[in-house]
C-alpha cells in the first residue's frame, strides 16, 4: 500500500480542482443566504477566497489549477453567448422611458468608467491596469473577456468588478437619500448601470420594477461597453 502515491494522484486530479471550486461556491452560497444576502458575502467572493485558500494550503500552483478546472472554465463562452437572451427580453422596457434610459446610461455609465480611469491614471496605473479598470461596471463574464481582449487581466477585472458591485450595493441607499432619488425605476437603473449583477440582485429586493430596470441597465451597459471599450482601446 502506498498512501503517498494515492494522495499525490488525488492532488493532481482535475476533480480535485473542480471539487474545491464547487465546494467553495456552495459554502459561499450557504453563507450568503444564511446572512440575509448581504452583498459583502457575495458567493463568488467567498468561493474565490476558499478556492485560493485551498490552493495555497495544498501547494497547488495556479497553472495546475487552471488545467484541472478547465472543464468549468470552458463553459464561460456559451454562457456568455446565452446572456443575449435576457438582454433581448429587457430591451422591451426601454420603450417605457427611452430618453431617460439613453441619457442616464451614456452620461452616468460613461462618467463611472471615465472617472475610474482618470483616478487610476492620476494614481500612476500602467496601460494594462487602465484596460482592466475600464471594465469595472460591466457584469463579470463580459468584463473578463473584454479586459483580456484589450490587453488587461481577466482575473483582476473579475475582482475589481466584484468589489465595484459590492461597493455600489452598499453606498447606493445613502446616495439615493442624499439626492432624493426616490423613484424605484431610477434607483434600479442606477444600480444596474453602476453595480451590474450585484446591484441588480439588490434592486429586486427593493421591488420588481426596480429589479426590471436594473436588469435593463446592466444589459445595456454590457452591450455598450462590449462594443465601445475595445473600439476606444484600439486608438491607444
Amino acid at each position, binding site marked *: 500500500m502506498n498512501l503517498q502515491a494515492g494522495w499525490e494522484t488525488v492532488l493532481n486530479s482535475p476533480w480535485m480542482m473542480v471539487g474545491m471550486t464547487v465546494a467553495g461556491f456552495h459554502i459561499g452560497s450557504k453563507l450568503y443566504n444564511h446572512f440575509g444576502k448581504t452583498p459583502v458575502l457575495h458567493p463568488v467572493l467567498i468561493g474565490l477566497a476558499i478556492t485560493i485558500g485551498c490552493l495555497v494550503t495544498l501547494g497547488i500552483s495556479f497553472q495546475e489549477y487552471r488545467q484541472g478546472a478547465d472543464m468549468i*472554465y470552458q463553459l464561460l463562452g456559451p454562457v456568455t453567448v446565452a446572456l443575449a*437572451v435576457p438582454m433581448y427580453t429587457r430591451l422591451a422596457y426601454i420603450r417605457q*422611458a427611452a430618453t431617460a434610459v439613453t441619457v442616464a446610461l451614456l452620461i452616468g455609465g460613461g462618467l463611472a468608467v471615465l472617472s475610474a480611469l482618470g483616478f487610476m491614471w492620476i494614481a500612476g496605473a500602467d496601460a494594462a491596469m487602465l484596460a482592466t479598470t475600464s471594465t469595472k461596471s460591466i457584469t463579470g*463574464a463580459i468584463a473578463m473577456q473584454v479586459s483580456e481582449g484589450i490587453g488587461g487581466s481577466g482575473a483582476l477585472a473579475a475582482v475589481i468588478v466584484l468589489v465595484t458591485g459590492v461597493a455600489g450595493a452598499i453606498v447606493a441607499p445613502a446616495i439615493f437619500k442624499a439626492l432624493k432619488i426616490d*423613484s424605484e425605476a431610477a434607483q434600479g*437603473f442606477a444600480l444596474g448601470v453602476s453595480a451590474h449583477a450585484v446591484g441588480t440582485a439588490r434592486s429586486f429586493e427593493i421591488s420588481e420594477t426596480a429589479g426590471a430596470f436594473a436588469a435593463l441597465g446592466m444589459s445595456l451597459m454590457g452591450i455598450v461597453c462590449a*462594443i465601445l471599450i475595445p473600439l476606444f482601446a484600439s486608438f491607444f
Partner: protein
Amino acid sequence: MLHSVLVLIAFQLLGEFIQASFDLPIHGAICGMLLLLVVLIIRGRVSAPLRTTANSLFQYLPLILIPPSVGVMTQWQALTAQPFALGAVIVLSTAIGLAVSGFLFQRLARKGPSA
C-alpha cells in the same frame, strides 16, 4: 434543450470565427453574444427552449466565474500594491455612476409622458 445548446455553441463558434477572421479586439464569446442579440431582435422573439436553457445555465454563472477569477492569485502585487488607492477609486467612481445615472433617470423619466 439539446437544440438550444447547439444554437449557443454555434454562435460561440461563429463569434470565434469572426473574431479571428477580422482580428477583432473582442473575445469570440462576446462577438457571439452580440450576434445572437441581433438575430433575436430581427426575429422578434425568443423560443421557449432557448429561454429555458439560458436560464438553467445562469444558475451556475457565479460558479463559472470562479476559475477565471482565481488567476488573481498570480496578480497579488497589482491588487495589494496600493490597496487603499484602488479601493478608493472603485468606491468613488461607482458612487459617481450611481448618483449621476439615478439623478438623470429620475429627472427625465418624470418629464416623459409614459413614466
